[in-house]
């Protein structure tokens, strides 16, 4: 136990340089495409023939140090973030934290609902598939899941959206009817959200669920024949409980090792879907920010994801050690 606490503390220490490195990486990635926000902004305006407000652009450029060399800009950015100042969105012309606003909550809503639904579906189905290998049920569910996997998300999104509109008259796209968009929460709005949310959840969730089902199944199949399963059966344990307590727990290994990337994966997997469905989540905003090189918005957002990942990885490592006592996190291999 004490070792574990020491390990956690130590890992927290390691997190600092990791995050620093990540921030550098993110910064470079954002800076990689040629030009900066203002250039692309001006280009975009020009494309439709509009003139840009050069005065303000010059001002912003100077204020945000676009004339300064890259390392200085990097330091400014990181320094700001440490103070809780996530920078300024040029596109929205307001502080990043204001821009993200509601979207963050909606993103978290969609993501959690998706993740939970994925788990709720994937585990039972995976277990069923493994224990009833090659039954019709197994084949049917596999087929279903794989079709979900094989149809690109955007196609699925278009189809569902179209059908939902035709069958249920659900308005196309978005997380709620547009009339509720900037309204405070109300029963009506909630209902509208419920009416809309299932589409993105299904779309984002299918691929993940199918993948998870296949993985759970595969891992369980590997464990089902182990001697300790026999032991457990010899105790007279109910087969389902046997399954849950022993092979299933063993097979969770892969799942737990992945905790760190679940959230980022769901969020980035949802990006295209969110764009197609025009969801009020952070995905489209991130893509837009990236394309427009609205660097503070994109950067801070990516940093947020990175932070989630890093914490997720830590949680995953700790959970692994708790799950499987054989795992020694610190030591090297014996030999």
């Amino acid at each position: 136990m004490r070792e574990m606490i020491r390990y956690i503390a130590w890992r927290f220490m390691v997190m600092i340089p990791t995050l620093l490195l990540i921030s550098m990486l993110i910064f470079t990635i954002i800076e990689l495409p040629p030009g900066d926000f203002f250039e692309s902004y001006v280009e975009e305006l020009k494309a439709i023939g509009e003139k840009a407000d050069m005065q303000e652009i010059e001002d912003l450029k100077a204020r945000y140090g676009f004339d300064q060399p890259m390392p200085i800009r990097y330091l400014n950015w990181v320094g700001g973030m440490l103070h809780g100042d996530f920078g300024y969105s040029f596109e929205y012309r307001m502080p990043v934290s204001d821009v993200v606003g509601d979207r963050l909550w909606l993103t978290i809503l969609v993501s959690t609902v998706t993740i939970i639904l994925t788990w709720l579906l994937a585990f039972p189905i995976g277990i069923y598939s493994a224990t009833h290998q090659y039954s019709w049920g197994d084949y049917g569910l596999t087929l279903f899941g794989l079709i979900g996997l094989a149809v690109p998300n955007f196609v699925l999104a278009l189809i569902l959206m179209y059908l939902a509109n035709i069958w249920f008259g659900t308005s196309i796209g978005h997380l709620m009817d547009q009339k509720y968009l900037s309204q405070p929460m109300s029963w009506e709005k909630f209902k509208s959200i419920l009416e809309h949310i299932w589409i993105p959840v299904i779309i984002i969730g299918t691929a993940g669920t199918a993948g998870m089902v296949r993985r759970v199944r595969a891992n369980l199949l590997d464990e089902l024949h182990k001697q300790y399963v026999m032991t457990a059966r010899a105790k007279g344990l109910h087969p389902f409980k046997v399954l849950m307590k022993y092979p299933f727990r063993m097979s969770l290994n892969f799942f737990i090792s992945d905790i760190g990337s679940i959230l980022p994966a769901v969020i980035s997997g949802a990006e295209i879907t969110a764009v197609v469905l025009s969801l009020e989540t952070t995905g489209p905003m991130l893509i837009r920010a990236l394309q427009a090189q609205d660097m503070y918005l994109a950067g801070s957002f990516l940093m947020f994801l990175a932070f989630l990942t890093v914490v997720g990885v830590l949680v995953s490592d700790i959970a692994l050690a708790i799950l499987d006592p054989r795992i020694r996190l610190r030591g090297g291999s014996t030999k």
Partner: protein
Amino acid sequence: MNEQTDLLRIEGLSVSFPLWGGSIHAVKNISMRIRPGKVTALVGESGSGKSVLGRAVMGIETPAAQTSGHIFFNDPDTKERIDLLALPNEGRKMRNIRGNRIGMIFQEPMTSFSPMHTVGNQIEEVLKIHTVLSPKERQERCEEMLSLVGFSNPARAFNMYPFELSGGMRQRAMIAMALVCGPSLLIADEPTTALDVTIQAQILKLLRDLQSRLGMAMLLITHDLGVVASMADEVVVVYRGEVMEAGPVDAIFRNARHPYTKGLMAAVPDFEMPRSARLKPLREIEVDAVGLVDRKKHAEAHSDVVLSVRNVSKSFVTKRGGGFGLGASPSTLAVNDVSFDIRRGETLGLVGESGCGKTTLSKILMRGVTADAGEVLFQSERGPIDVLNARGEDLNLLRQRIQMVFQDPISSLSPRMTVRNIVSEPLEIHQRGDAKARLDAVKRLIRAIGLPENAMGRYPHSFSGGQRQRIGIARALALGPDLLICDEPVSALDVSIQAQILNLMKDLKKDLGLTYLFISHNLAVVNYMADRVAVMYAGRIVEIAPCDVIMRNPVHPYTKKLLAAVPTPNLDRPLDFAAIGQPSAEARKQWARQFQEDAPGDLAHADLGEGHLVLARRNVDVRELRP
């Protein structure tokens, strides 16, 4: 009908495993019975279907197995007669019988526990399923059971993970698990193979007690005819899935009639045997020991000591038990300041109590476990190699020159490699010969250990315990090492096959000059094999001497107790459970003062001459030690 019916009647049971191009008939039309409160011993050659039969009774054979026949179980509680085979396999009724009415001790305790859960959790589970006790009561019951099976600190053992236990400890935990519900039938598949004779006696005594107190019947599957003689009421002898001879224990032991039974009896090594005599296996396998392994004659090293061990220590910290960061986790001193030499061409026997650190020690010698302190030197033709710190070429050399047979055969074999790949792996690693030469070598080895050649294409899990053990031996022999560390190499073998293997090992030693470190609980085997014997107790070597000396003239009280506890396959010399079935921690208190340790560092080795060393108080007079 008689008033007292059979507890279990097996009628015409057959079990077969489909396999490529045919199937394996592991059990062929066997009928037998077990009477309430009695012990039926099932003996037979390794691979003859004993374990399969046991599993079939429990209904937990792999689904791939095809089973036919009847297994009637007369539940003494409900007075019902149930055909276990006819019950739905995972039905409530069957589950209620499993673990509750019929307990099972698996042959391979090492792998039978889930590595993810503590021993306590897994034992307690049985109670959770079948009783309505509160968690606290359950834990108490478990701890009580654990202490009955010889854990000196049951509360601690409760919280340990299986891989933190020694082989014998796991086996005892397994026994505790099987017994914790007080079943009316216990299927004990080799319950004492990993136990030293003193603990074995203790366990047998426990079983006896339960038998008489609760009327528990037992199907005792064992190779140890001594145990059979001491425990069994009826004996069934099986060979290749069929019953050869069956009858009351008296009839079998005093009047064995079937050639197989007779052969079995004859193959038992015993203390009276001259050391040079060969054991008489049922079937002698012609093995050309020299041609068997590809052993390059290396230039003889200067020293006649192959391996010298100096002051080696190792302690383990357990994963759980330390509470939440409070206080240091308790650590076990598994090996405590051990020093000895192994001379070229000799066999050093290592015996000792279960959990005393033999396996740990042997792994340290192989660098499988890193020692906390100490030094191990291996003498090669290139001069001495510091085993614990060797690198590069030296290490590579070591890996070829020292091989090990693991105590736990199944877990030391990669589950996803066929036997052929397993046995040829060392050859591949060290690039001996080409593919064809390797295949030939594998074939020779497989034959030498008495397995059919078709075993090569099968995976480890489809073998019997004894067969797997032999695969492990074949693998260890493949490279023709200088030093072979055998951790209980024959514990799962019936006496006949054991004789075969021991003969083989002796031949190799004679012809190729192999050196063995031979860890065993079977003192008769040690007596037969070893030139010198070291006795370990609680991480220390308490006595080391040439074999004869130890066997006839032991000095240390533990050694004495050990020798007294050896069961013999002789109905006239049953074990005196009352005397020897005493837990070792208690026995220790009765040791003479000169062997007791009051403070660390009290004890040192006293030289009694002829290479006979005994661990005793520093200042003790050597003469005092001799009784």
